[in-house]
């Protein structure tokens, strides 16, 4: 930004501000923001720098830990060859497909269990047994029953998403303030209105906790199942890279998974913020 631009912007800011503020002080603000950002990212940047430098300086064996730039180059080559897209597509379809199916199935089921004590009573033991059976332990079972195609992988994702979704949704509905329900009933709300206008909005924040946990579970389980039996996907890319000694590719697969995790969490967080705007602190006004 040129000095001229800077001054004209500052003039504008000063003229709209309710009280004249010394211009020098205002000029500090963007820099300070940048400073805070770099302070927060310093450790991460240092780690990436170390990744680049350590193999180059001979601190580690470049064959086992290639420099970051080589890893990114390998990723670029994969992208140019069109393979990267294929792997991403395969993994994302499985993860989001399974995740979406789980949300559609288990959020309503959780609401029903949370609302009807009888249903909770009937299902609580089977839920407790199943949720303590680690999903990955069931992977061979799913492959045996459903084959090594898409069905077994998506089922794995659905299964592992089910528990965080179910448990959080049940808890969410159970902890709805009974006074809010009572108040709506006195205003003559029908059971359907009670559900749509009170139970659901009151449960949403806790349901979202389950949704975020489920999205993390989806990726975890998917990568593991892609490592066992798949012809495409990021898990396959990693394990194939290891077997074929394409080490930079392997590391790129890891980075890709991190990126997907960060993006999906960011996306879910912004959806959550939209739905639960009312929880924002009053100071934000």
């Amino acid at each position, binding site marked *: 930004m040129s000095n001229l631009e800077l001054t004209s912007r500052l003039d504008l800011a000063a003229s709209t501000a309710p009280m004249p503020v010394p211009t020098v002080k205002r000029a500090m603000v963007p820099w300070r923001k940048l400073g805070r950002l770099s302070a927060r990212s310093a450790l991460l940047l240092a780690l990436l720098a170390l990744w680049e430098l350590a193999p180059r300086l001979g601190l580690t064996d470049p064959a086992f830990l290639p420099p970051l730039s080589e890893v990114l180059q390998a990723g670029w080559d994969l992208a140019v060859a069109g393979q990267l897209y294929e792997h991403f597509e395969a993994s994302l379809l499985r993860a989001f497909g399974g995740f979406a199916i789980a949300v559609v199935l288990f959020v309503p089921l959780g609401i029903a269990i949370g609302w009807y004590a009888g249903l909770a009573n009937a299902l609580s033991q089977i839920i407790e047994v199943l949720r303590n059976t680690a999903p990955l332990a069931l992977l061979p079972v799913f492959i045996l029953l459903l084959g090594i195609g898409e069905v077994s992988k998506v089922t794995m994702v659905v299964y592992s998403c089910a528990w965080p979704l179910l448990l959080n949704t049940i808890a969410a509905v159970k902890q709805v*303030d009974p*006074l*809010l329900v*009572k*108040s*709506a*009933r*006195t*205003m*003559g*709300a*029908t059971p359907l*209105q009670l559900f749509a*206008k*009170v139970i659901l*909005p*009151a449960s*949403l924040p806790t349901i979202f906790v389950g949704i975020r946990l489920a999205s993390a579970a989806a990726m975890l389980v998917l990568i593991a199942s892609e490592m066992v039996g798949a012809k495409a996907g990021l898990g396959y890319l990693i394990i194939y890279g290891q077997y074929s000694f394409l080490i930079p590719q392997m590391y790129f697969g890891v980075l890709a998974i991190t990126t997907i995790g960060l993006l999906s969490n960011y996306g879910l967080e912004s959806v959550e913020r939209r739905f*639960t705007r*009312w*929880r924002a602190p*009053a100071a934000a*006004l």
Partner: protein
Amino acid sequence: MSADAKELPKISFRQVRKEFAVRADGGSARHFVALDDITLDVAAGGFLTLVGPSGCGKSTLLDLLGGLTIPTGGTILLDGRPISGPGRDRGIVFQQYALYPWRTAVQNIEFGLEIAGVGARERREKALHYLDLVGLSAFADRFPQELSGGMKQRVAIARSLAYEPQVLLMDEPFAALDAQTREQLQTELLRIWRRTGTTILFITHGIDEAIVLGQRVAVMTARPGRIRQVFDIPAALHSETGDVRSLPLFGEVRYDIWSLLREEVARTQAARPARPPQSSPELAHVQS
């Protein structure tokens, strides 16, 4: 009551009795009488306050009137017809406000109208009108957590008034507020009552509040909850201007009610069972 006997009372309790089953230590069910032989009328447009020692069944009485529970015996009539369930002809204001935290002030007020199926534009108009009535026009788009306790209770009152119930039931609505805010809201409630002509049944544990607000004050006894006596409050204590609390008459009425209540509190404390069966989780409703 002293009013014209031919005029139909708005609310009429006729020998109302309410029992709860209490799980005793041995596991066998025991019956606990929360309310017994409640007979009480509230005239149309009247303002009745109900005071009593804690645990005397005031809130049980209100739940019955709200149609949330059914009496074990006797009947409750609204305009001469027995109450069969909750309905928008009665609005309830709770002590803990019961506002929906995900709705703004104006959206909270719209809630009852939404339930009733009123169109969006009419709903908003009415909500804004009642928001104005409680003096909160400037706070229409605030969420409950951005409002003070007094403001929240104003929104709750506006919400109950918005669907224009004939009866407003208030369960210790000002108990959680500080003294100044409480007094302010008492004055406003009286103003709103005079303007809307709504019949109000107001539950409180404060004698002063009962006298300042009520045309009549019903004093309840505890275990079982019964109506001990109904005081007619002299009209001089309801002047719209001036501090009624400083009048000698106020002191006299206050003393009468206070003596009666003290007698009751002393009596219930003497007769207190080893484990008072008053906490609600132990109570299972008996519906007959």
